[in-house]
């Protein structure tokens, strides 16, 4: 590990200044950052320990719920209100990692976790995300974990997390404090970026920005499902996941908020799916049309071609379970 300075942030007002110094990075649970520092993928000069800031509360805010940036994944998934009103979020978190990791993993760290692309994590390989301009090893190489939607010729990596996929379905907002001390909020759906020609940027955070929390909107009626497809039944990242909030009235779909994980550089949200499904009577042919729309522009890179039919089937299975249609 490259030598670095360690500094603890004691007050929220000081963090922005500390983390805007060049080469400085925030550290929360450390489960992603320390992993990558050991591999010399991340080489900060200074790490700013934010763990003692008062950002771990989970509290009702207006009609919704505010989850502090430092609330652990365990605290969020175990919270009574999350379990009763936002079960999709608890389920997505519990489907990820392990209890030991979730005890350390935080809301902000989870949102900012980096891709699991094997070229990104191996400094002997070319990777535009880690080393802009060096090329992309995955496009012509091993791409089993990689994206089928929203890729660019620079990068085909996926955002690997589960929690943010549920937050995208819920249309939660990320609250950010900038270097000047101003607070802004941005939808989780817009927080992560597509790689385009700047794959080194995973999300819209600017230097000196610190995430202070995530705001969930008022709870909505309907079934909330999180289906994660992976290589083994626990302790593995998603090959594809579907977060779905589906409500019905008199045999017709009245709400269909869907988001997908493991298939793009961000939790994938396509507003057209909700428009197609709402007002319709659920059926296998309707679900097929939804998959056609979702996967219209999908393409694989050899090893991950299977993700296209896999996503189609995962979507159909989720919608069948939510609406009671026989698969």
């Amino acid at each position: 590990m490259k030598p670095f300075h360690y500094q603890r942030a004691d007050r929220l007002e000081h963090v922005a200044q500390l983390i805007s110094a060049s080469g400085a990075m925030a550290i929360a649970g450390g489960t992603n950052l320390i992993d990558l520092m050991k591999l010399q993928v991340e080489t900060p000069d200074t790490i700013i320990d934010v763990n003692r800031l008062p950002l771990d509360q989970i509290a009702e805010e207006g009609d919704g719920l505010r989850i502090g940036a430092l609330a652990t994944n365990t605290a969020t998934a175990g919270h009574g209100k999350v379990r009763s009103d936002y079960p999709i979020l608890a389920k997505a978190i519990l489907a990820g990692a392990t209890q030991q990791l979730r005890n350390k993993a935080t809301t902000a760290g989870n949102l900012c976790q980096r891709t699991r692309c094997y070229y990104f994590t191996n400094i002997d390989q070319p990777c535009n995300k880690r080393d802009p301009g060096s090329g992309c090893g995955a496009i012509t190489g091993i791409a089993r974990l990689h994206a089928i939607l929203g890729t660019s010729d620079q990068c085909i990596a996926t955002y690997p997390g589960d929690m943010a996929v549920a937050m995208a379905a819920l249309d939660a907002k990320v609250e950010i404090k900038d270097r000047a001390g101003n607070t802004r909020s941005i939808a989780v759906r817009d927080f992560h970026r597509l790689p385009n020609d700047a794959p080194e940027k995973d999300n819209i955070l600017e230097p000196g920005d610190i995430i202070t929390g995530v705001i969930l909107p008022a709870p909505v009626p309907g079934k909330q499902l999180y289906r994660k497809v992976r290589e083994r039944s626990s302790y593995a990242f998603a090959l594809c996941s579907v977060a779905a909030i589906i409500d019905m009235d008199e045999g017709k779909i009245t709400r269909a908020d869907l988001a997908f994980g493991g298939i793009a550089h961000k939790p994938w949200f396509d507003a057209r799916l909700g428009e197609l499904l709402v007002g319709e009577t659920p059926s296998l042919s309707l679900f097929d049309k939804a998959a056609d729309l979702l996967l219209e522009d999908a393409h694989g890179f050899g090893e991950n071609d299977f993700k296209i039919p896999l996503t189609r089937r995962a979507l159909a299975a989720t919608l069948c379970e939510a609406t009671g249609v026989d698969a």
Partner: protein
Amino acid sequence: MTLTINDKEYELPSDPRVSLLDFIRHDAGLSGTKKGCDHGQCGACTVIVNGERINSCLTLAIMHEDDAVTTIEGLGTPTNPSALQQAFLSHDGYQCGYCTPGQICSATAMLTEIASGLPSDATEDISTSPKLTDEEIRERMSGNLCRCGAYPNIVAAIREVAEAGL
């Protein structure tokens, strides 16, 4: 600046790079806690910090000022083992034993988590309190890999302690 391991205080290291795992093994000289992967993938390094199990390889010792760490040595001794340590012995919950300290620390914290009602991915209805089925035990212990495949006996050892309410 100190942290506590098994009720004994230790000075924090001056090099911030020292992981909690290396600190426990080298600085504190407690070699029960094991290093398998050093990347959060195997659970051999599991210890209990302020009551919660974590992977000590993915955290820095310097981040733990004033924290209370419990390692396998802190749970019991050869002459006075904890209920789980005794159950792993009676059920042969190991072969080579390398993963065992991590398994037992993990299982110790897991029983507290169940008692506090924390759900898992195996919990059918997460709005209710989980029951300790074998499926729950397996899911909750999935962060501890055993290269020898002693899993059935590990589950049996944990089940025995859970059922006895020890």
